[in-house]
């Protein structure tokens, strides 16, 4: 009898753990392989993406927000341009294994092969656009859904990523499968949301936008 009670208790605890890990208002995606197929199909037709974004940095202990605005560009297979326009100018271009960073004063080039962190940031951005996020070895990915949104919950799987993030949430529009929002959570409790709006698919994007040299 005590053994049965213990098993029951353990089962309850495990169930509670699973329930509490599930984001509020979401349930696990019922047919994960179907969802992955749909995501792969949708992103395979995506040649380019142009979207505005609003970035909001939430400081956990200060109830403060730092808001910045900019434009996000993606071109298949691995070109990303993140251009902050307000209240400061900052440009990040990822093209293959190269990254260009430019602020108001200087430009610098980073080879992602020599920087594990930048390599990971590069990969997350590209994965979100290509729908290949499930195969990213740096994160354990769980998928949830509600009536209008899919939520991909990325939990760091290695120490390097754990130092940078406690988790990343990717919100996808259920109809278009566009990324609506990225939420990057830091180990200290701060988090940064990137909300995307005015998305335009498959515009012709000039090579100059993705020039890193």
């Amino acid at each position, binding site marked *: 009898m005590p053994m049965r009670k213990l098993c029951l208790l353990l089962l309850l605890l495990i169930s509670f753990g699973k329930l509490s890990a599930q984001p509020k208002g979401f349930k696990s995606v019922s047919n994960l392989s179907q969802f992955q197929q749909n995501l792969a199909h949708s992103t395979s037709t995506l040649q380019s993406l142009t979207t505005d974004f609003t*970035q*909001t*940095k939430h*400081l956990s*202990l*200060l109830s*403060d*927000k*730092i*808001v*910045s605005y900019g434009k996000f560009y993606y071109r298949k297979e691995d070109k990303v341009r*993140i251009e*902050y326009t*307000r*209240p*400061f100018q*900052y440009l*990040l271009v990822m093209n293959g294994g190269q990254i260009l960073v430019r*602020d*108001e*004063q*200087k430009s*610098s080039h980073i080879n992602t092969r020599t920087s594990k962190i930048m390599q990971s940031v590069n990969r997350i951005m590209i994965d979100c656009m290509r729908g290949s996020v499930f195969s990213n070895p740096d994160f354990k990915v769980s998928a949830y859904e509600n009536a209008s949104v899919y939520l991909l919950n990325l939990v760091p799987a290695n120490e390097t990523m754990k*130092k*940078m993030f406690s988790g990343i949430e990717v919100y996808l529009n259920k109809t278009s499968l566009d990324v609506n929002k990225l939420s*990057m959570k*830091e180990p*200290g409790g*701060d988090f*940064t949301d990137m909300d995307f709006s005015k998305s335009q698919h498959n515009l012709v994007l000039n090579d100059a936008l993705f020039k890193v040299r």
Partner: protein
Amino acid sequence: MHYLKSGSLLLLLFLAACGSPYRKLKPMEADSLQVLEPFRFQPQFNDGATILYRCHVDGRFLLKKFHLSGILLFRDMPDGGRNTRAVFTNEMGASLFDFGWKINANGRDSFQVYSIVEQLNKPALIKTLRKDLELMLVRDLNDVKLFSGNGNFYYRSKLENGYAYYILDGRTKALNRIEIAGKKRVASIFQIGKGRDDDFADSLSFVHNKAHFSINAKRIHNAGTE
């Protein structure tokens, strides 16, 4: 012999040039300008305002140049206890450091590192950044003495090693700059565009001659804060 004399003279001139720029300062009676006057340059937060700066850091480490940028935020906590935080983040939102000051039970300032990324978590760097920000915020002054010289007034505050000088224009009594020095100047802090003495400046510049790095910050008026 002539050469020796010329050489000695040159050596003397060289030594004089290398000497402390503060040696010839004349002590003044503290009351003539009020010893606590540097506190009038303490930047005030109005109604819980958050102060943001766009920040660029340039320097040299082991002969290699480096450059980084980000956003520096100052915030007065709403407990009325002169509890101030300084948070530095990169453009993409990742926190690089979060420092805080508050008045402890003894009425003195206490400093706390709330968080700092591994790459910046070096005691010497934290000490330097803490000192820079404390002097700019006019948090805690020790054994303040007043001097005059070179047409300026100098409020000297004792540091753990050396002194900090708040240098006031002799005519306008406006804050010209802050210098950190032992026998020689090791760093200067410039604040440009302080509308009032107790305003946050439009731009800040921390120049470290000895540590070979500088921080330049331009205020972003709260367009980016909600």
